């Protein structure tokens, strides 16, 4: 019996339709792969609307758990991605979460976080819809990449590698306040870049 060429474990990890099919068949590793694929955008979307990181992550977990429970009913759309579906679940969860406050207040303010979150949402200029969050994320990524090396490195180390300004300042023998100013300016540049990208302009 001729042996089939052996498949590298990672090669079809990026093949979302394949992973979806496997996950629907009960392959939990495939489901975890899907979680990896989409966790960032779901978490970022929820974080945009909910102040506490812990709450955002709790909600994000719930999104995937609901997705898991509903896998049977899920049909992969033409685009071949489950992201829109996941974002739909995330948005519904956010709405549920926001309905909390009235009863919470009656119970004596048990969960201040939820109350604050809700007020935050009410005050936000425009609740962003999931697709827009995704576009902003992509724009942000490409704008960060296009920053000059020193700035891109600072953004990367502080936001992505989670290094404190204090430790970064110590390394560069600078004042923390100086780094803070730099970051403020970098963020200004990023915002301009992002808005331009969203309008369809060149980055």
């Amino acid at each position, binding site marked *: 019996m001729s042996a089939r060429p052996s498949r590298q474990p990672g090669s079809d990890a990026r093949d979302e339709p394949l992973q979806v099919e496997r996950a629907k068949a009960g392959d939990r590793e495939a489901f975890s792969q899907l979680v990896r694929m989409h966790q*960032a955008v779901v978490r970022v979307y*929820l974080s945009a609307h909910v102040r506490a990181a812990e709450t955002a992550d709790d909600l994000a977990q*719930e999104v995937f758990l609901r997705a898991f429970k509903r896998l049977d009913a899920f049909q992969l759309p033409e685009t071949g991605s489950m992201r829109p579906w996941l974002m739909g679940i995330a948005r519904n969860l956010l709405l549920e979460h926001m309905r*909390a406050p009235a009863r919470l207040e009656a119970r004596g303010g048990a969960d201040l976080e939820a109350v604050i979150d809700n007020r935050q949402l009410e005050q936000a200029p425009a609740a962003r819809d999931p697709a827009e969050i995704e576009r902003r994320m992509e724009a942000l990524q490409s704008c960060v990449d296009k920053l000059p090396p020193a700035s891109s490195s600072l953004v990367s180390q502080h*936001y992505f590698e989670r290094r404190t300004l204090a430790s970064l300042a110590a390394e560069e023998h600078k004042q923390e306040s100086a780094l803070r100013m730099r970051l403020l300016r970098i963020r200004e540049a990023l915002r301009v870049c992002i808005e331009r990208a969203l309008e369809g302009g060149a980055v």
Partner: protein
Amino acid sequence: MTDEELQRMLDALGRSRATERQFVQRVEDLVMAEVTAERFVSAVQKKIDAAAPRRRGRAWLLAAPLALAAAALIVVAMHALRSGAPEGPAPVATVVAGTLQESARRLEVGQEAPRDAVLTSEDGRACLRLRDASHLCLEQGSRVRVAAEGRVQLEAGKVAAVVTHQKPGQTFTIQTAVAEVVAIGTAFSVELTEEGASAIARVVQGTVLVVPPGRARGQGTEVRAHQALAASIGRRWRMSSEEEREEWSLVRAQAVPVVTALQTAEAPPPEPGGVDGGAQEGEVAALLRLADALRARGRLRDAQGICDGLAQRYPDHPEIERIAAELRRPPPAQPWNATPAVYRINAGGGRYVDPRGNVWSADAHYTGGHSGEFLEEIDGTDMDPLYQSERFVFPGETLTYNLPVPDGAYVVRLHFAEIWAGTVKRNMRQFDVVVEGVKVLAGYDIAGEVGSMTATVKQVVTTVRDGSLDIQFRHVLENPKVSAIEVLALTPDAPPPPAPAPPTVFPPLPLPSTDALYRVNTGGREYVDPQGRRWEADNYFNDTGLGAAQYVDIAGTDLDPLYQTERRAYVLPSRGPLVYSFPVPPGRYLVRLHFAELNPAAGAGSNVFDVLVEKTEAFRRLDVFAEVGALRALAKEVETTVSDGVLDLSFRPIAGRPRISAIEVLPLAVGAPGAAGCAVGGAGSASPALALALALAVIAALVRSGSRRRRPGGPAERPASR
């Protein structure tokens, strides 16, 4: 876009990258808990109707992930076994179904496994084809090593083999630390009990030899088709039909034609003890579950045999003694065999007194036919001798029973079991039965209806006008037969007695579950702690709350994984508080709750909650951080009494979110010890039938109310423990 929004986005993006692994892990834990929650109904089923609930069902029927055995003792058994295969890392097997893990690699269908590689089946059942065309299938959570052609080491779990006919002098062996199973062209499986203390060999076709390590082949125990053997206690039993079905499904999974062959000798007694505590309990629990499964089918002798073997291996073991007392209890009286009868005839056999004290006469009042017998245990009855003997008749002859009775109406019960090797399946034996001139059974196929070695009873009503109740058995296919006949008088105003409903069902045994009824790693997966105690994956909670995890060291404990995962009440008022509900028999319990504050940045006052046990406040305003600080274990205990069959724990938030890392439920009442030995017999008491009926009613209610909800159903009442 404001600067604040951008900062939040950058922050979220950074966090999602930095903590991707943990996040995915937490979702996996949640998914795991969700999957185990789907088995909640069957878990409740098993717990509600026993004095001391069982926590897991039959290992081979549940697809529950087996914890990989901690003990990977590979004892090298020196045998006169030629390997006959070349050394070197040459591939020795090919994956033909499922996937296997080999260290960090995943082996898919078509890929080859190298010799001596340790292969695990974490994702589900997986099968390998060996170079000699033999097949091996691993049940989920099993671990094997294919050492050479014809030699496989089973380290944990269960493997089924379909072995091609070996050349003369060659054998196929599955080695475990506790026994070797040698085959010469058969289909069989070997399963290690939890912790690997006992190997169980089950043979579907052919014969295997089970040899203790270090012994010569001649000292092995033969296990034939349809039989199973628990190596550590040296006991054999005939597999129940469920066991056989499961084994056949493994054979079919291999999709290979089975080649048969056979023979050999008798068995040495097992050696007692020398097994560590955790492994011992795993073995005792697994074998008692088997005994219970057999007893439930009326296979009392086989159940007794296993119990005896265990009692010999572990003398003075209180759990074994308790089960022995239970086995001594007579089975519940069936309403249909308590009535007095005009005739009770043991067709083909001698006088017999059944466990209810009914006397069955030796075969009489017949014309024609021959008697036959087969002395194997019969499923679905405790009146085995009735079914082990039969009267049958050759072609060209007729078999008739003429029973003198006063004229009147009668109930006739005909007892059957298919005990002959030549007619074990459907469409091998069919016959007609005529009672008082009326054909009451046409083309009746016993094996087609209930399978072989299983009791069944057919009941009809008839009227006699000539002083003789006549029953005739006529050929259709093969020879007609009958195992026993009962005739009961029908009084004019009384309704006929209920028709018998085989198979006889025996209530389950009160199996041991070590000291705790429940150990649950709330918010996390199944975990075996350093003392060998098994903590279940999160379960028994209502649909409020999320698992959370922080994989850091926890001070004050060596059970870190318990505390690293927790269930947090997700405070959505529409959902109500977080509640855990454990089905337990009424009694007194100790509840031990484990907590840890996983967020070092939380201060006193961030997470404060009340804990209620059985609707009574057990802990008011519990603030884990205030008590012990962050990342440190805290355990709190409270005693409670349960009278409604469900132990409820609820968590009422005051500030932040209630959270719980692990829960233990320990019974405080101790069962009464029974006398030593496992012999069945003696007078009975209580009413297990009532308990069973109630349990079934509760189970039915639970199933109706929808198995997805994790809340258990109504209360389960059980007569007081003996």
